[in-house]
């Protein structure tokens, strides 16, 4: 069945399709499965190769030229002003065509929106175009080794020195650090204020600025995150968004912006993966085994439910309803599903799962990588425990935990709406 979102949406879909058919460089869609990122089990080297290709560069330029970059930003800030349904359709059509959506990363999803809300007009005029053009590529400087999810516990210091701010401390779980030239840092500028006061939100140059960024190798063998040792990094006071000691509010705006659209298109990746899983069961001669068939049907059901939920969400957005707790439910759903797929694939492979491909380093096969990488899904961008807290408190209205007695009490009023259960990392937000 096709989802019918009404004539306006369908006209928009036609527009996107038409544009894609003329704008996409030949060959780009054959390079790699663009829905499967290294973080979720995709082959990183193939990805990097594809991203270095001429076709990718052409595509990026075309997207920029035709005004399809940062498309949800208001037109006055250089965007296209897409609503959630249009944005989802845009993503969907790119996924269908297997083309990469050119995003400006944290700049597009988090920094830009925060500047729009909390920045001065001068700051907006200075920073937003540089995000759109790709000149400024941001990574996130929220998490620290001592507190993954507990933003109020930030200990990185910022000291005002003339018209500059000088930052010293340590950050971790910085995804995309290797391509960034800017980092948005939460640092403590008033150590005497209560924990969630006295913080500032600073857009800081990432290169040649006393920041030693090192990759954090993951158990998969690759390194998607960075760790930064910051020893006197400098930024103009102009780069403080929302004013000194007012960083908490800005950070809240930043964290409030989730990437849109993946709840409606996420299933496409799993559909392809499911086909491969069935193929695997055939290859190993287990596709007639009733227990295997039961597990495959279970997997199929889950992929379909992601599709159905996406359609339902799109239908609701099209009617102008506010999305509910879908983001948390969706994240729990796919992250736990991926773990089940990884385990099933390994069970199907049996002995073959014990052997890795030839080559240096810790290279893994596709299924081995899915198996291993899936353990991260329930941790990054808010652990499953935090997602359950969010569902329980925001969607079901269950009471928050009693606050811990002072002095710990101040720390409990944090970025996440509830006391989280595990040492979560926010790196991939």
């Amino acid at each position, binding site marked *: *069945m096709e989802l019918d979102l009404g004539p306006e949406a369908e006209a928009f879909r036609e527009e996107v399709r038409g544009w894609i058919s003329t704008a996409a460089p030949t060959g780009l869609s054959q390079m790699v499965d663009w829905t499967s990122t290294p973080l979720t089990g995709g082959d990183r080297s193939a990805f990097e190769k594809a991203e270095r290709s001429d076709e990718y560069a052409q595509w990026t330029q075309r997207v920029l030229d035709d005004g399809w970059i940062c498309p949800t930003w208001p037109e006055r800030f250089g965007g296209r002003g897409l609503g959630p349904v249009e944005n989802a359709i845009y993503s969907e059509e790119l996924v269908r065509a297997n083309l990469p959506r050119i995003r400006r990363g944290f700049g597009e999803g988090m920094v830009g929106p925060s500047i729009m809300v909390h920045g001065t007009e001068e700051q907006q005029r200075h920073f937003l175009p540089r995000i759109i053009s790709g000149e400024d590529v941001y990574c996130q400087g929220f998490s620290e080794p001592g507190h993954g999810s507990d933003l109020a516990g930030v200990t990185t210091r910022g000291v005002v020195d003339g018209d500059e701010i000088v930052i010293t401390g340590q950050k971790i779980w910085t995804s995309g650090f290797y391509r960034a030239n800017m980092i948005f840092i939460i640092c403590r500028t008033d150590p005497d204020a209560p924990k969630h006061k006295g913080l500032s939100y600073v857009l800081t140059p990432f290169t040649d600025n006393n920041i030693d960024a090192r990759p954090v190798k993951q158990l998969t063998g690759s390194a998607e995150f960075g760790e930064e040792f910051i020893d006197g990094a400098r930024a103009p006071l102009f780069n403080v968004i929302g004013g000194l000691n007012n960083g908490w509010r800005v950070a809240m705006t930043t964290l409030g912006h989730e990437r849109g659209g993946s709840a409606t298109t996420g299933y496409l990746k799993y559909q392809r993966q499911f086909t491969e899983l*069935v193929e695997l069961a055939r290859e190993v001669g287990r596709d007639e085994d009733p227990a295997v068939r039961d597990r495959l049907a279970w997997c199929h*059901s889950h992929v379909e439910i992601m599709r*159905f939920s996406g359609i339902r969400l799109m239908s609701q957005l099209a009617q102008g309803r506010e999305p509910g707790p879908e983001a948390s439910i969706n994240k729990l759903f796919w992250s736990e599903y991926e773990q089940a797929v990884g385990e099933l694939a390994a069970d199907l492979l049996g002995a073959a799962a014990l052997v890795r491909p030839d080559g240096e380093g810790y290279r893994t096969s596709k299924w081995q990588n899915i198996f291993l990488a899936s353990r991260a899904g329930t941790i990054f961008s808010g652990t499953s425990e935090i997602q359950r807290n969010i569902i329980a408190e925001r969607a079901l209205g269950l009471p928050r*935990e009693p606050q811990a007695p002072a002095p710990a009490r101040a720390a409990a009023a944090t970025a996440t709406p509830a006391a989280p259960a595990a040492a979560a990392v926010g790196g991939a937000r």
Partner: protein
Amino acid sequence: MQLVFDAEQEELRRSVRRFCDNEMTSETVRALMDTRDAHDPARWKRMAEQLGLQGLVIPEEHGGSGATFVELAVVQEEFGRAIFPGPFLSTLFATCAILDAGDEEAGKDLLPGIADGSTIATVAATEPDGRWDLAATSTTARADGQGFAREFALHGTKAYVPDGALADLLLVVARSDAGLSLFAVDPTAAGVTRTAVNTLDQTRPMATVELDGAAGRLVGTDGGAGASMARTLEKVAVLIALEQVGGAQRALDMAVEYAKQRRQFGRFIGSFQAIKHKAANVMLRVESARAAAYYAAWAVAGGSDEVPAVASLAKAYCSDAYFFAATENIQIHGGIGFTWEHDAHLHLKRAEASKLWLGDPTFHRAKLADAVGV
């Protein structure tokens, strides 16, 4: 297709909700549960006359309102929420069986009575071996040679017939020389013996029906029930799934409500993470079940060829989800949730019974695997 209800459907939901709130309180359900048929004729009449629920999907020319399966979805979800006792699902089962048989004549004769509430109908498909696969049918139909080509004599035993002791009309699946066929049987006629049985879920009575030469009128083509009943069973699977979504949501609501007002150790128990995370897990399953059941309902309404797959998908997933919600609801309530006086057990029993009836999740996942070519 849009996977949301339109304004009229939402209005229907409000009407049915009001009806249930007024007419199907816990007290009413419990009073009906203690009777053989769990049925109130006056209420059944009001359902037909005031709300037209029995005729919802019956074509207008046969006295119904010709609505789509999506309207039915709304009603089933609400009835599931209220654990509605009475022969509604059975009568829908029979209605679908008649419609799927594609027998205009039979439709003209049988459907108006269903639509106006004067006929309670059901389908006698399963036999004492409890197999849900109709290929196992051993009840026989013999053309009786009395000159009517559509009159047959039926022999055999049907079991687990929902509302079988109450129904005014039985649609019986039997094997004629031409293969599986469907027959309309008057249960008060000679050769029919009905025995009500006690049920695990007391809100859903069942009976054993013995047929010893009972007269059956062919509905649809002779030998055509293998195909038509397969479609009917898919629809009933979706109707059960919708009911399960309503029940699961209600079980979650009960648990959350209780967790918000019950204090232990100086705190609302809903502030403990163990309770919160339980409730969140239930919500995840209920929302997922809802997406599955709604999609399946829309697929039936749209005549999609996805129906065989998504009907089994929905029945399997929603069964598990409702059972999970029902058991976690008891656990969150603690001792009080284990008492007869508390409604939690009504959901446990409904969840288990509707999970097993017409095939458990394993059965339906096997069907799903077949349907999607795994």
